[in-house]
């Protein structure tokens, strides 16, 4: 198959072990359970060495792509992260964020193509921190690692991506995140047109991948287009365009590669429902949006609230029921000390009174 052919063309070497982990601003804010699950799956389920360094910081990528952090500055911040890795005795850099992943690849490529920028960065880093730049041997996104381990995860699976009521594979929309492979197609598994990174997981765990016309379109984040309120109309409009395009395929859930995309595809469904009374799930509710760590976690039998799925605005319970995942509905609203902390207010997106998109089309 042609899709597979393109995947063959864009394989990349992924280190098998000994990773240095760089966290993501957005992922730890909105999906702290996903970062926890990633580390837990690697360390405790697969026996892989991954180091969570207390000294690293944001890559400042959101500031860079909002055009307030200069190129020279972000290069030096990135250089500091690389040095920290070397100092900790690692050489395989793993980023939990697509924006950062793009930045790391881009900075390395820029140093390669414009050696004077690398020299300048070394100078700045030395002057500011006394550290020496050591470049990583490999760069991977966290999803690359899960992809690499997908068969091992499948062997340990407690659930498969199958609707237990019908026995049919779940229909899954995958969303990759622009900076995963559009900047450097060779940096992504499967390239930029038919990335295989999430599709490979979905297939390995029993689901069906939905190909819909706006599959490659951006979620609309667009940095300043979301971060400044006045611009949000265009940000939401891009997600709206994608949701309109995918709804006829009646997906059971969306899985996203990029933490920002996962958050926006979730939150914009809420907003669209509030603004327009429209929902995109076949049941008249929203379409649950998962991170791949959550997807992997559910497959491995993790508790959904331990995975942090209570952070989602679109309720995931209908999906958990389809998967046959057992969960304690009350535990969703417990704090760290196990005490009930109250519930969020209801939202239209989770009420079945919404008109599903395909009915409106009829």
């Amino acid at each position, binding site marked *: *198959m*042609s*899709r597979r*052919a*393109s995947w063959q063309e864009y394989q990349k070497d992924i280190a098998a072990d000994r990773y240095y982990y760089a966290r993501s601003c957005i992922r730890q804010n909105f999906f702290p359970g996903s970062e926890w699950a990633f580390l837990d799956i690697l360390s405790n389920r697969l026996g892989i060495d991954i180091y969570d360094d207390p000294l690293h910081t944001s890559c400042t990528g959101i500031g860079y792509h909002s055009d307030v952090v200069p190129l020279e500055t972000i290069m030096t911040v990135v250089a500091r992260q690389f040095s920290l890795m070397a100092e900790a005795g690692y050489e395989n850099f793993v980023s939990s964020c697509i924006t950062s992943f793009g930045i790391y690849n881009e900075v390395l490529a820029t140093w390669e193509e414009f050696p004077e920028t690398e020299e300048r960065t070394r100078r700045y880093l030395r002057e500011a921190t006394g550290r020496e730049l050591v470049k990583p041997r490999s760069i991977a996104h966290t999803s690359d690692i899960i992809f690499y381990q997908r068969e091992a995860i499948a062997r340990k699976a407690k659930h498969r991506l199958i609707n237990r009521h019908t026995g049919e594979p779940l229909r899954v929309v995958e969303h990759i995140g622009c900076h995963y492979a559009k900047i450097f197609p060779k940096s992504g598994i499967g*390239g930029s*047109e*038919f990335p295989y990174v999430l599709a490979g997981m979905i297939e390995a765990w029993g689901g069906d991948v939905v*190909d*819909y*016309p*706006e*599959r*490659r379109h951006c979620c609309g984040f667009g940095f300043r287009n979301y971060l400044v309120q006045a611009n949000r109309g265009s940000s939401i409009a891009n997600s709206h365009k994608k949701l309109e395009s995918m709804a*006829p*395929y009646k997906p059971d859930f969306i899985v996203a590669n990029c933490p920002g995309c996962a958050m926006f595809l979730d939150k914009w469904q809420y907003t669209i429902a509030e603004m327009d009374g429209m929902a995109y799930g076949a049941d008249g509710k929203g379409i649950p949006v998962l991170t791949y760590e959550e997807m992997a976690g559910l497959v491995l039998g993790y508790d959904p609230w331990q995975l942090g799925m209570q952070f989602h605005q679109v309720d995931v319970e209908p999906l958990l029921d389809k998967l046959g995942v057992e969960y304690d509905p009350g535990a969703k609203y417990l704090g760290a000390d196990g005490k009930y902390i109250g519930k969020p207010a209801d939202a239209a997106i989770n009420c079945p009174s919404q008109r599903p998109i395909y009915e409106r089309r009829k």
Partner: protein
Amino acid sequence: MAYRVVVVGGGAAGMQTAIELKSRGIEPIIVERDIELGGKARGWYKLFPTFTHAREVIGPLAQQVKDMHIRCFYGQEVTQIAPDGVTLRSEERIPADAVVVATGFTLFDAHRKQEYGYGLYDNVITSVDLERMMIGGRVTLADGSEPKRIAILHCVGSRDEKVGQKHCSKVCCITGVKQAIELKEMYPTADVFNFYMDIRMFGPGYEELYREAQERYNVHFVRGRISEAAETINKRIQIKAEDTLTGRPLRMTVDMLVLLVGMSANYDNVKLAASAGLALAPNGYFKARDAFLGVVRSEREGIFFAGTATAPKSLADTLAEASLTASAVDAYLKEKFNIE
């Protein structure tokens, strides 16, 4: 005894060169990789700009080769070229007094432009697939139904450094116009859209045909390269382009997307050129000695070119050039062997 010239390739260029050589009393030998003569033109239905059947051109040429008792090797691949002969894959050597490289081109593989989904979406086809359908007498969608809206995309594998094809393939523009007219003849109520960057009508009658397509056949022309194609739930093709003449993005769903695939240099040009000590042009074609006064001569005495081995050309230009090649070979042999 007649001088012997090996012609590598039995397409239009090779056949015409051989015929002209023979009529000058030289003994040509055609070495053809395929099992019959005719080359790429065998897969073509009608030719621009006159709508002549391709077989009406290729057929008589092949017949003439036969009638003139020109020796042909079939199913034989040439692996090495030298001014004094060629070596076949079988390691058999055919000695000669001169060699003509008429190895033609390779069609651009549309799979490589992944964003168009060729090979993945049933109703995304190439211009070659369309010719094949026309030879078969019926152009339909994958499910057998008639297309009502068709987009034809120019420059697939041409003027595109992303796929290492920086050159213009020259013939696709006029092919797009020709195929649009043929589609309109077949389905007069269908809407046909050509998406182009520049319309390059370089030959006699081409510009006139372009205008006829526009005015008489109501073919639509949109100035903008399609950026991506995707299949809809109904197996139609959603395309995205910019209508650059209005400066706005343009969205459209069509029943069929035809990719006008360009000409690539043959992959084995690299090896052949190396074996002969010849240089290649940056786009992988053989490099002619001079762009004006030596278009059919290589940089080595005794090795000549004919047709698309050196650059994309139309069939008419290829045939004209092949005659020139024969005359250049003739002149070379006369000089070399001091005749007259």
